[in-house]
């Protein structure tokens, strides 16, 4: 909402208040000012001048020298190239006579006294553009040439300030009005707020209509056939003379951000801005059968709106129709078939109230949003319809735009309910933590047009946002001053706050990963489905079946990821293409797994929410990173959860990963996740120059299997014996399996098994490898004897040979 301050001053006089102070105060009481602009800020020292003579310039064919009376004790000399000046013309002159200490400014810059081809020019005649105006603002002017004020029917005399005679001396204040206050989308609404905020009287005006005879009943009959229209008021204007509206109206519209068109249309816009009540004017000659009916459209009905677009209506669209067809979409836009034209002779003014939701749905369906629909959809006060149309009629007479036919139409089947709210000053004070006496409170509410009915407050009809104690409390506190509320400490029961164990565990994971050199990333949870195939998933793979957004911007924001790997790969690629030589990255990333027919709510709501799981995703490339460093990280994470019974199983099937370099991790029989090297086939879809390693572990699973014991275990009292074994075995023998065999040789005395060397080549036959283990043996209750150690060693050697054909390397 853009407010003209001149207009506001008609209602509440705040002329003496500095504009910045006005904006700050009105913001603090609840009407937020986004900004303000003085319309004449670019203009100074532009006066009305009477051209007394026009003579040829002695040295230039295209210039003339004028003597101009600008109300000073002498005439000024102005040199101009304009062709449309003549003796007797009243023109705007930017004056800067030498020695007068005046600086003239217009749109385009400062004007100074100077010589033009040898002749003194003490200023400049102005065109409309130089005054910041256009042909809509000054319809009788010309664009190329000087604005001739008498031709534009501007009443003025030499020496008058042009800013004042053209009513440019206005300030536009732009408000951000919240959707609960449609009443403030009007000059009167903001005047009410201004009056209450500054404690100044408001001068409300009851329109007086001068009726010119005839009877509206002979012109038109109105019916409401659908309850989505709660009131319909109409007036008829005859002998209409379409013309530009007067300058004061045009400039107020301009200051309010509305373009002037002609007197009738300007009046409807003027009333809409003043009252907040959208209006429409129909050309009476286009209304068939003297009949206006508010009804719903027929499904598929075609209709051409004022903007010359053909619209297809549906059966829930509310329309204004004549005896035959729709002539307007209720509350949204009128029809081209009944538009006001130069030739219009009789006009029907509509001032009606339409259901907000209905207007909103219609606007959405038709993809139309107008000044009118934007107001209706917030819910307007049906009480103001009649006064608004009366005001329009008053303006018609004032502007001489036509004659008002006697009588008005007002179809208002169910008068709007009056709402009452109990007045509870004590509760309000307690709730806000302030003290305002009941009488002060009453005075505040009185200024806001609340009245009293016993102990109840009567809510003004334009305040549909006020229905309960909290709403009254807000009225009180915004008038009292939000910033006068004293900060206090909650006085309440102690509640144990803090992080849940899972939240604490997440922090621990992050700290651990940062400690071993992983940087945390943050990626979008939606992506393009193409990233699945880019990462190596097969087209249509079951695990890529994703939740999809129905109204995305495009492919990139459509698919809710089921894996955190594709987004990690994108980040790795971003870094690789920016020549970051090596990275270690991680994210705790949510993935969304679709599911069906699972009850996930208690309200019987339709549809099933997907399963949301948080993944720990790791991604590395570059020096210092390989399969085993990644595996080590995975192991550290598992260790940090105190989890012991973990198995790593080669996975050759997962198409994203290298079939020979991918493992699944299991805790007992529960899969924790997968890690490995990005499949070189998939890697071709990226610009990586080194191998990429990825891991995705399920955070919840890790958390649920935490085995941390709080108790300490005694430090060993007896020494250990360490025996090293170098086995030669076939390539097919997995080190992990061999270690498992060793471990099973003695579950009590074997404390630790460590693979410390893997060797191929040299004396080792092709297809074979050497695996060197260091085995630590220890007894809890005695010093282990050499004999015991020898016995276990023999057992290890024979088991390795028996189970894996592994022989001790000679």
């Amino acid at each position: 909402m853009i407010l003209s301050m001149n207009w506001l001053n008609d209602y509440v006089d705040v002329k003496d208040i500095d504009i910045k102070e006005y904006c700050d105060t009105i913001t603090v009481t609840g009407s937020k000012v986004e900004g303000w602009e003085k319309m004449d800020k670019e203009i100074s020292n532009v006066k009305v001048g009477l051209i007394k003579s026009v003579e040829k310039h002695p040295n230039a064919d295209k210039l003339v020298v004028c003597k101009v009376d600008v109300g000073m004790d002498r005439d000024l000399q102005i040199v101009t190239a304009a062709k449309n000046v003549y003796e007797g013309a009243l023109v705007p002159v930017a004056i800067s006579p030498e020695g007068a200490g005046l600086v003239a400014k217009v749109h385009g810059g400062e004007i100074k006294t100077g010589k033009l081809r040898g002749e003194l020019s003490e200023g400049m005649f102005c065109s409309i553009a130089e005054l910041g105006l256009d042909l809509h603002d000054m319809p009788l002017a010309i664009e190329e040439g000087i604005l001739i004020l008498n031709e534009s029917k501007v009443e003025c005399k030499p020496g008058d300030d042009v800013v004042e005679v053209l009513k440019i001396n206005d300030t536009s204040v732009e408000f951000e009005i919240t959707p609960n206050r449609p009443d403030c989308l009007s000059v009167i609404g903001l005047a009410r707020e201004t009056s209450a905020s500054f404690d100044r009287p408001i001068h409300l005006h009851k329109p007086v209509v001068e009726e010119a005879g005839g009877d509206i009943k002979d012109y038109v009959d109105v019916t409401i056939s659908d309850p989505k229209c709660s009131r319909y008021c109409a007036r008829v204007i005859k002998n209409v003379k379409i013309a530009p509206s007067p300058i004061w109206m045009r400039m107020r519209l301009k200051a309010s951000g509305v373009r002037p068109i002609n007197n009738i249309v300007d009046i409807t816009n003027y009333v809409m801005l003043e009252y907040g009540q959208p209006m429409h004017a129909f050309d009476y000659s286009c209304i068939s059968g003297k009949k206006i009916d508010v009804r719903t459209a027929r499904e598929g009905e075609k209709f051409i709106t004022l903007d010359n677009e053909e619209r297809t209506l549906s059966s829930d669209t509310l329309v204004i129709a004549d005896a035959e067809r729709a002539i307007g979409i209720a509350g949204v836009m009128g029809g081209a078939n009944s538009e006001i034209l130069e030739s219009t002779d009789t006009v029907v003014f509509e001032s009606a109230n339409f259901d907000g939701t209905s207007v909103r749905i219609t606007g959405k369906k038709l993809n139309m949003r107008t000044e009118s629909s934007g107001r209706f959809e917030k819910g307007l006060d049906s009480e103001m319809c009649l006064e608004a149309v009366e005001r329009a009629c008053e303006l018609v007479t004032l502007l001489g735009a036509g004659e008002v036919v006697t009588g008005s139409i007002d179809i208002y089947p169910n008068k709007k309910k009056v709402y009452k709210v109990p007045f509870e000053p004590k509760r309000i004070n307690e709730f806000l933590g302030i003290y305002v006496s009941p009488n002060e409170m009453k005075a505040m509410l009185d200024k806001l047009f609340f009245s009293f009915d016993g102990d109840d407050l009567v809510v003004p009809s334009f305040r549909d946002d006020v229905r309960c104690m909290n709403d009254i409390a807000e009225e009180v506190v915004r008038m009292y001053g939000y910033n006068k509320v004293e900060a206090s400490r909650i006085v309440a029961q102690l509640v144990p706050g803090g992080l849940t164990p899972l939240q604490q565990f997440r922090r621990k994971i992050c700290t651990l990963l940062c400690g071993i050199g992983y940087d945390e990333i943050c990626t979008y949870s939606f992506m393009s489905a193409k990233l699945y195939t880019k990462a190596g998933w097969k087209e249509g793979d079951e695990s890529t079946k994703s939740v999809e957004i129905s109204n995305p911007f495009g492919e990139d924001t459509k698919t809710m990821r089921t894996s955190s790997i594709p987004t990690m790969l994108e980040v790795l690629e971003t870094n690789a293409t920016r020549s970051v030589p090596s990275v270690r990255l991680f994210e705790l990333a949510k993935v969304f797994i679709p599911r069906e027919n699972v009850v996930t709510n208690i309200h019987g709501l339709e549809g099933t929410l997907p399963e949301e799981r948080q993944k720990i995703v790791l991604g590395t490339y570059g020096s210092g990173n390989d399969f085993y460093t990644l595996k080590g990280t995975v192991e550290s994470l598992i260790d940090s959860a105190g989890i012991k019974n973990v198995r790593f199983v080669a996975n050759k099937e997962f198409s994203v990963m290298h079939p020979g370099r991918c493992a699944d991790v299991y805790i007992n029989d529960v899969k924790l996740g997968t890690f490995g090297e990005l499949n070189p086939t998939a890697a071709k879809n990226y610009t990586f120059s080194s191998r990429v390693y990825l891991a995705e572990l399920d955070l919840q699973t890790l958390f649920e299997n935490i085995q941390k014991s709080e108790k300490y275990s005694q430090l060993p009292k007896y020494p250990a014996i360490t025996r090293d074994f170098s086995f030669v075995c076939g390539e097919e023998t997995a080190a992990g399996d061999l270690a498992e065999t060793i471990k099973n040789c003695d579950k009590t005395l074997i404390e630790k098994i460590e693979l410390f060397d893997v060797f191929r080549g040299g004396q080792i036959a092709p297809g074979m490898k050497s695996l060197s283990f260091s085995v630590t043996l220890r007894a809890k209750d005695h010093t282990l004897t050499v004999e015991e150690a020898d016995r276990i060693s023999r057992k290890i050697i024979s088991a390795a040979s028996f189970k894996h054909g592994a022989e001790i390397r000679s």
Partner: protein
Amino acid sequence: MDIKEQLEQIKKNALDMLNSDSDLESIRVKFLGKKGELTAVLRSMGQVSPEDRPLVGKHVNEVREAIEQAIENKKSSFMEKAMQAKLKAETIDVTEPGKKPEIGHRHPIAQTEEMLVDIFVGMGFSVVEGPEIEYDYYNFEALNLPKNHPARDTQDTFYITDNILLRSQTSPVQVRTMENTKPPIRIISPGRVYRADPADATHSPIFHQMEGLVVDKGITMGDLKGVLELFAKKVFGENTKIRFRPHHFPFTEPSAEVDVSCWECGGKGCRVCKGEGWVEILGAGMVHPFVLRNCGIDPDVYSGFAFGMGIERIALSRFGIDDLRLFYENDERFLKQF
């Protein structure tokens, strides 16, 4: 030569030798050994008169101690020299780079979220989370935003179906909490939210919010101010002031937009606060009775307040970052700065 002179001579000889010879052991043997010169003197003690013996004995011991001390001093001095030589030989260039283990960094948004969470945890708040894909009911309807409510225009929402959407705020967590918990309630709900705003320097279709909710008997608007004032001081410094401006949110009444005094200029007006002296940082208000009642809490008995802030906005201000997109680009050279 009497015995006293003899002893002085031995002492002199020994010290002279120590000054010129480095073989400390042979000097010790020569003078102090079993067959050494001093031992010889001791052996000749028999010739000394019994009354003189204690004096001579004392003298012998003095000489012995002097020689032993001199040998010991010489030894330490040799060791010291050897150590000096070793240290010199082992000197390295300490300006060569260290072998630094690479340390990772938390994402700036995560760091900021953690900082905010810790502030409220310190005030006794619990941290509650909820689904990011939500029912329209929890995201809007239960919060006094029925379908086709004009206030829905202020948030463009991503929908999955007519009833399921990507939550546009973390408020559904509050609704779920109120449905399942009896007051007193004191929670914060940090998390990801989604709005259909294309990404640019100041918008992101995904961002992080943290909302707070307190419901109990006798909670006042003054309490809301108290909590937010504490919070603002913790985040932006002890001298920070807050300012409430009336606003409208469907789920709170009264509602306010909350500004903090500019952390850059302290309120004088600068580039950061666009000359205003204040920066808008969060929205807040007293929980609307409709919302309480809808969650099974009697608004005639209980009252509460709620507030919400954008974590990115605070991170941007905290780190002086001017483009939101940097957070989601994840350039390692950016990440390593935090």
